[in-house]
């Protein structure tokens, strides 16, 4: 199944870059049942990493308790306008997606 692009915003202020990421993903917990009573299988992002110019700035592991269409915000020292921020994730079905944005 095709995945939608992430929305990534990164801004630099006083030498600190703040990155905000909005990921488009169902994040199904595996605890819900559909109308027929069958359990909807779990489908969620397990791992996520963010890189600034190929240097890792955040690695995350998600469980099923992270909300649908996960939002994530973090800050790191350094970064300059125009630098590349790349975020990638992998879900429990093995699907992956990577997106990039420039620091504004």
């Amino acid at each position: 199944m095709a995945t939608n692009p992430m929305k990534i915003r990164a801004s630099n202020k006083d030498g600190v870059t703040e990155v905000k990421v909005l990921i488009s993903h169902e994040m199904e917990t595996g605890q819900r049942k559909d109308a027929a009573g069958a359990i909807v299988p779990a489908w969620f992002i397990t791992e996520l990493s963010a890189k600034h110019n190929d240097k890792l700035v955040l690695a995350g592991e998600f469980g099923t308790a992270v909300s649908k269409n996960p939002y994530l915000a973090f800050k790191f020292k350094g970064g300059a306008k125009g630098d590349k921020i790349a975020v990638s994730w992998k879900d429990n079905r093995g699907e992956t997606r990577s997106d990039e944005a420039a620091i504004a």
Partner: protein
Amino acid sequence: MNNQRRNVLKTGSGAALLSVLAVAGIIKPGMALADWNKAAFDAKSMADTLKALGAAAPADSKDVQVTGPDIAENGAVVPVGVSSTLPGVTMVAILIEKNPNALAASFTLPEGTEANVQTRVKMGQTSNVYALVKSGDKFFMATKEIKVTLGGCGG
């Protein structure tokens, strides 16, 4: 390399070894995408989760903050943030005591990344939310109760 890391996780060895893992994760960013801590995410109780993370007895600390609403109207989307003023924070995790699996998310912070992470989580019911922070080779924790008026599961 990979097998060794898995064994270490299974045996739940000390914090020193885990910090070695964190360093390995930083040196080889690609590895970070290949090693989901299943034991920790499958653990149901707080105690089991902490054990699986290698943080058997974290100390309460005023230098760790959990931010979030006092009352969440919709348990499916609860904004939660963790921040800390402790030096050398390498790991941050969000745990929700009364969820089916306590661990919601954990983050590895390489040097230069601030101990200030915000995300959104699901909460099945009113519960204490714990922020677990690793500074140096010690673990620290802070708590905040978030009341949920509408559950996040099955809604």
